[in-house]
């Protein structure tokens, strides 16, 4: 019974990691950049959903509000991600690889602080203007608990299944199916695969590589935004630094699955979630319990990097003939 319960918990956590991990992996697959600010895109998604709710539906927890919150979340994340690519990464396209990496860390801190200081004070030091009476984001902010997807948990033969669990796993299934269709069946998806395999030759085919890079950021931001909503529903509040640890875990998941491989990111996310949940439950003694759960996640990162750097689904890197 404990095992089944941890299976459910692990899959929930893993779905969240998987949704975020896809963003790391698609961007890496196209431009070989680890976008360390991607965790913040997830955080912005959560705040985007909250803002949409506060502006349009404050106090209303009917379930029909949820799709509009998700749209608000996606819009916020996508706008920030596209701006980030345009302003911070594109000018560094031909710079040494360390430059965009450090920029990414800078963007990450910038976005956290912007939300922390500016959420209830968008003009910062210029004025205290706060038209929709947003709460301060310096502490945790309560996330609206929407009907149907939150509330009394289900009990299936002794295994507790939260409603937000069903939402999260369902979101991953829908997003993964959509992504599969997009990548393998559409013209733009095929172009994306071509760019990740050989950008110069893709240009000879008439593919605008800049546009495909934007598409990669949009896909990552969309899935991260959905994850932000899922996280808000699950733990009932959000905060400006929620993207940091979630981002690192998702990055670990992407590496575990094989960075650059979309299905690897999904598999890596689910695996990492399961390992964390099982480790907390079944490792006895001093190393057991939740205080150690982050240790297991990053121990996996180190083991993967040492013994299977290409990840679970990644192909061995061979030089092009």
């Amino acid at each position, binding site marked *: 019974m404990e095992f089944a319960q941890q299976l459910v918990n692990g899959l929930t956590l893993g779905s969240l990691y998987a949704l975020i991990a896809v963003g790391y992996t698609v961007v890496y697959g196209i431009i070989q950049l680890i976008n360390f600010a991607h965790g913040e895109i997830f955080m912005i998604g959560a705040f985007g959903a909250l803002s949409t709710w506060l502006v349009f539906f404050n106090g209303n927890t009917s379930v029909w509000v949820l799709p509009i919150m998700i749209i608000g979340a996606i819009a916020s994340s996508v706008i920030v991600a596209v701006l980030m690519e345009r302003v911070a990464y594109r000018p560094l396209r031909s710079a040494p690889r360390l430059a965009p990496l450090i920029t990414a860390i800078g963007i990450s801190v910038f976005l956290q602080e912007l939300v922390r200081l500016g959420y209830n004070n968008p003009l910062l030091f210029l004025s205290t203007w706060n038209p929709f009476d947003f709460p301060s984001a310096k502490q945790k902010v309560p996330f609206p608990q929407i009907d149907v997807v939150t509330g009394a948990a289900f009990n299936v033969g002794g295994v507790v299944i939260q409603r937000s669990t069903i939402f999260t796993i369902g979101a991953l299934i829908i997003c993964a199916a959509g992504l599969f269709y997009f990548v393998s069946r559409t013209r733009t998806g*095929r172009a994306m*695969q071509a760019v990740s*395999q*050989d950008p*110069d030759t893709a240009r*000879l*085919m*008439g593919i*605008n590589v800049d546009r495909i890079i934007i598409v990669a950021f949009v896909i990552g931001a969309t899935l991260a935004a959905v994850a932000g909503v899922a996280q808000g529903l699950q733990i009932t509040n959000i905060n400006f630094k929620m993207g940091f640890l979630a981002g690192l875990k998702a990055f670990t998941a992407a590496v575990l699955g094989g960075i650059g491989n979309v299905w690897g990111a999904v598999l890596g996310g689910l695996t990492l979630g399961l390992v964390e949940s099982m480790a907390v439950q079944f490792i006895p003694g001093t190393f057991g319990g939740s205080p150690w759960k982050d240790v297991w996640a990053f121990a996996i990162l180190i083991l993967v990097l040492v013994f299977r750097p290409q990840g679970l689904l990644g192909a061995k890197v061979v030089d092009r003939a």
Partner: protein
Amino acid sequence: MSAMLEVKDLVVSYGKIKAVKGISFSVDEGEVVSLIGTNGAGKTTTLRTISGLLRPVSGSIVFKGADLTTVPAHDIVQLGLAHSPEGRRIFPKLTVEENLLLGAFSRKDKGIRGDLEAAYDLFPILQERRTQPAGTFSGGEQQMLAMGRAMMSRPKMLMLDEPSMGLSPLMMKRIMTTVSTLQAQGTTILLVEQNAQAALKRATKGYVLEVGRIVLSGTGRELLESDDVRKAYLGED
């Protein structure tokens, strides 16, 4: 009549190293023009610059009246100029059919399906293997795919970079026959080769490149019969 492709005083460098040092040549409609020369002569650099993957330091490249030196690489194929790159560069994880469809990426017309059939007619082996990932193919099959892919854009002019590289004599013959077929069908061809014999035999015009300069030019026959070419490229004394 003005040339289809006119390259004038083209200079291309990688950092401080000049790879192409002021070359001029032209390709008229319906011709097969060969650029021959050894490794490092600047042949591939020249093609990559025409395609917009590299930018020249100076000089001009005019294709059907348009100056290509300011056109983004991804817009050039739409003007009717296709480039089958050195080393074939097929997309290894995509299937044959996906590779061919990417060749038609710049097109939105309804003729793509028909051209897919035409590519399969040209190279029947591609049809047999249409659902297989292209990375598993032999060099010759990859070369056929690369040429078929380039033809999917319905180019007025096709640039082929060392199509015979690493192929068996039989396969090389097959590829070179296809070059003649494509010319007969009305495609103008700019052929870059180290294999001077094969390239000049079919060429209406040829240019010999040596370390970034054109040192000889003439009709294919003239070059084949020239003592310099025979000594340097055909291994004769």
